[in-house]
């Protein structure tokens, strides 16, 4: 286990991470150094005028024309670890192309798109002093609806370069010190006769004198909450409407412009690889079926897709060695659920890193289940920080606060980004498992082929053609949600009779889904044509690949 560098934050937690300008230079260098396999394009410009860039890894003539995986990272602004790992995956795949046989084969047959930093404005807060967890991009918004914009953000009152918390001693406050670990606060249970001791705020002043502290910081929209599925209209930092942020719209337009993207892997706070998504059944609105006009949208994955989520979770856990982790952040306007429910793609999500769990945290005293989970997580984090050199938690220390004259005000608590981004020394080792999973996932995409193509003469100039359309990949040619969502295309199967004529079977049809792992479907045509002439059967889908078989009539 690497250790947070130094005591008292001699070194910034972002040391070893790349800010927007550095990341962009790395992306451009990667493209320069690996022209055969890397192409970059701009997906969007943030309100802070920073580029959102897509890296394409794929060799050969038509990388945009074959099944692809999209790795989307750092849409949740503080999750900079996602962009570092995504960038390392890109760099290692590019470097291995032409050297490592399996990577070469993969990038000859598949394409991997990587958008390493979907919310560059918010991520930039990781590289600024004072350090502050920012989820919003640099647009302007009136978060507290007081008709002033961005007028009350936090301040670093104790001058330690960090925005932490401040607690104000006040019997009207809701908080009290945890009896097992007095550095941590928990809600006082007044029903049990417990008195409150503290009011708790983000560190800062009440700049606009409205008796609310730091309620309208700089920025407008959390890119990771601005997608369509279960979008929280009028929510905190969710934007004016779904897809209102240029970064969100840019990511959406990128996926739409790349119908070959069959699966999306999102690095961020939503996880479905430690705890795979499950179908829940149940009725939609008014007892009508979910996924219909009357019944409304699906609220859980479709039953037929569940085994694939379970299997990929198993493969992920094997690739990364992870078994347990914190629960997933809720799904609301996030890219992971959008990719599955609205765009119909296979969608997997991983946090990449979290503070490892220790049973020592079980000593927490909080009672209710929700507060116990939260308190336990805090106790676990505090214990981990203490065991790793102490950086990451600021001990409570008294300051003079102009908004609270004569009162005891202390600043302290967890440092920003603790528990989200690991020390940079860990990035390489985290990348190993993630890279293994990404190649596993890209390799699992559908791969269609023709099997057992047969011609039988059934009469003068009349031939029966039979063929099995098979899928040698792992995933079916479409998921159940893919069929519903329509956007990922079905397989287009056609027979070109040349100078002959089709008298039975269809010249063109859309078929599938065809199961993976060798599953197949049988098709039959009857063609009238000259003996010795050739007809061609072709199957293709952007998400499942293509196959073609010439057939000589005889």
């Amino acid at each position: 286990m690497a250790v947070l560098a130094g005591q008292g934050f001699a070194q910034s937690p972002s040391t070893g991470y790349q800010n927007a300008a550095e990341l962009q230079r790395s992306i451009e260098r990667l493209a320069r150094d690996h022209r055969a396999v890397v192409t970059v394009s701009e997906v969007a410009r943030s309100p802070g005028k920073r580029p959102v860039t897509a890296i394409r890894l794929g060799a050969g003539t038509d990388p945009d024309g074959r099944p692809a995986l999209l790795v989307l990272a750092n849409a949740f602004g503080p999750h900079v670890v996602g962009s570092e790992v995504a960038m390392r995956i890109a760099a290692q795949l590019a470097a291995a192309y032409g050297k490592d046989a399996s990577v070469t084969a993969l990038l000859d047959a598949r394409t991997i798109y990587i958008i390493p930093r979907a919310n560059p404005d918010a991520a930039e807060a990781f590289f600024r002093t004072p350090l502050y967890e920012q989820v919003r991009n640099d647009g302007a918004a009136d978060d507290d609806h007081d008709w002033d914009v961005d007028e009350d953000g936090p301040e670093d009152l104790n001058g330690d370069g960090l925005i932490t918390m401040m607690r104000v001693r006040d019997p009207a406050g809701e908080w009290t010190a945890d009896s097992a670990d007095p550095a941590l606060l928990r809600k006082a249970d007044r029903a049990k006769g417990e008195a409150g001791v503290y009011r708790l705020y983000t560190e800062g002043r009440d700049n606009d004198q409205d008796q609310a502290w730091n309620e309208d910081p700089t920025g407008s929209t959390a890119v990771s909450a601005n997608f369509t599925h279960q979008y929280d209209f009028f929510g905190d930092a969710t934007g004016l409407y779904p897809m209102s942020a240029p970064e969100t719209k840019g990511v959406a337009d990128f996926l739409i412009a790349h119908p070959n993207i069959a699966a999306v892997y999102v690095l961020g706070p939503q996880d479905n690889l430690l705890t795979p998504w499950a179908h829940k059944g149940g009725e939609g609105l008014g007892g009508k079926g979910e996924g219909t006009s009357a019944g409304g949208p699906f609220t859980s994955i479709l039953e037929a897709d569940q085994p694939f989520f379970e299997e990929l979770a198993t493969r992920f856990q094997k690739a990364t060695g992870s078994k347990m982790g914190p629960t997933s952040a809720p799904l609301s306007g996030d890219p992971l659920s959008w990719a599955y429910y609205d765009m119909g793609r296979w969608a997997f999500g991983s946090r990449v890193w979290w503070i490892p769990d220790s049973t020592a945290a079980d000593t927490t005293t909080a009672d209710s289940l929700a507060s116990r989970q939260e308190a336990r997580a805090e106790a676990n984090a505090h214990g981990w920080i203490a065991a790793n050199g102490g950086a990451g938690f600021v001990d409570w220390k008294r300051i003079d606060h102009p908004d609270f004259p004569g009162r005891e005000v202390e600043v302290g608590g967890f440092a920003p980004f603790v528990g989200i981004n690991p020390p940079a020394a860990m990035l390489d080792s985290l990348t190993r498992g993630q890279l293994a999973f990404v190649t596993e996932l890209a390799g699992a995409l559908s791969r269609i082929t023709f099997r057992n193509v047969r011609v039988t003469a059934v009469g003068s100039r009349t031939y029966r053609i039979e063929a099995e359309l098979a899928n040698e990949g792992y995933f079916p040619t479409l998921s159940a949600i893919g069929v519903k969502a329509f956007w990922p295309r079905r397989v287009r199967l056609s027979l070109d009779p040349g100078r002959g004529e089709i008298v039975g079977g269809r010249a063109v049809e859309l078929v599938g889904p065809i199961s993976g792992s060798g599953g197949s479907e049988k098709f039959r045509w009857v063609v009238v044509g000259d003996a010795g002439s050739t007809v061609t059967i072709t199957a293709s889908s952007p998400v499942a690949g293509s196959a073609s078989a010439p057939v000589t009539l005889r």
Partner: protein
Amino acid sequence: MTMTTRLSVLTLAAALSLLPAGAASAQSALAAMGSPPNPKVPVSWDRYYDHAAIADIGRRLQQAYPDRCRLGSIGKSHEGRDIWLLTVTNFGTGDADRKPGMYIDGNIHANEVQGTEISLYTAWYLCEMADRVPWVDSLLDARVFYIVPTINPDGREDFISKANTPHSPRSGVVPRDSDGDGVVDEDGYDDLDGDGNITQMRRRNPNGRWIPSPVDPRIMIRAEADQPGEYEMLGEEGIDNDGDGVVNEDGVAYAYDPNRNWPWNWQPRYVQGGADYYPGSLPETRAVMQFIIGHPNIAGVQTYHNFGGWILRGPGVESDAYGGQDIQVYDAIGRVGETILPGYKYAVIWSGLYTTWGNELDWTYKGRGIISYSNELWTPFKYFEKPPEPNRYDRPEYQFDRLLLMREAVVPWTPYNHPQYGSIEIGGVKKQYIRAIPGFLLPAEAHRNMAFTVYQASQMPLVSVDSIAIRSLGGGLTEVTAIVTNQRLAPTHTEQDILNHITRPDWVTLEGAEVVAGFVVEDPLSGRAKEQLRNPRRIEVDNVPGMGTATVRWVVRGKGPFTVTVDSEKGGVGKRESGNAGK
């Protein structure tokens, strides 16, 4: 006065000399009520205008009435056409964008053309009549109309200039792969007979299940269950262009539905057909969204569709909810609409029509807090001014065509040699029938719908400072109480608006003294008041209800006179001065 009269007579004479020979002299005409007898901008309201003509009418209105009408654009369509905006108000009475605004658009569905003419007629009527009718004049002093005649100019152009059915295209022309085969718009309708209409194809077949109606053989009806038929119906005019065995499955007609592309309650296409990729994925949707978000003074919305004779409000989905007090406003205006528009019914979209997710007016109300209606223009009631009676052998539109249109509206069955179907016949209703209004009825329909929308506009909030009461508190302190009033049906903030903080509160500001404390008076009878700590000079009022008041109070140092202003984003601005506190 005399001079002015003389001048206008001269101008009139000059204008008349430009009339083509044979036109009736306006001097000999007796003005009919409701119409300008001598419009500065003559427009025939018995036809459907294309993109260039819309701009031309707009330019002529702007030239004739530069202080009343301005032509602008809210953005570009997919094919680069301007989405025209006519701003109609008295530009001489203050900043137009600070007046309560009525937003009107039409033609979101490309084939629903007459929304454009109704919108244009509204601009034209208001401009032409303000000098004749004082009520219109004062309406334009206090209100602004933002009129966007078509928010689907590409689709409109397709409908007008290309062969279509009455129902196509519903979408715009942004390319979409409707059948999911990887090729875009490769198999649309084909105007086989070259008459500019897409009608029906039939083929004589003793095993078919269709026969011509004995009343009007142009009508095809199903044979009785136990009787043989004479024809099979082959669908709309077309061929299988891409050889996939399906005819007309991928044209621009229904590729998406622009009225399911809006952000409130948007759902993907397996819940809502036509939703497209995401809300605002279409450039036209986005242009309207940006315009409405950028104009918080908009307090009323009308988006014209066809057809069926409906005055619709949301929600489009049963599980969605509209605020109870807002519904009272909707109902009051909607019921007046039923009086103005005989044959039209006021109804809720999901229960009166069908479920729609992500429609325009649910976003303007639920997403932006604006009272919003959609009129479904034209109804079969209008054929004979009574509800149509079901008749197996006849249809009201065919009867109307026979009796009033002299058989102009239907293409008679005509033989055609189809490359795939062989010997067939082509015939049926023309595209500008069924949904679009026949020419001689269009002006009346335009006028009635205009009148409803103007009524809605007149009932948008309009605030003023009603009174200022002063009471000396002694010691140089004075209590100032101001009543702000809104003498219209609609509130300055709908419930939806208040709940979600969409529009800023109304500001009531006192000038002329040092403010010691400021209050919102919650109950004027008891005097119960809530202090506003921050910036008490400018009291924030959540809402001035329809036909109601809001009361504010200050304690000030000084005796006056005081000036009180009310500044409401949707209700306009008002001002009043008080006298002195006296002793």
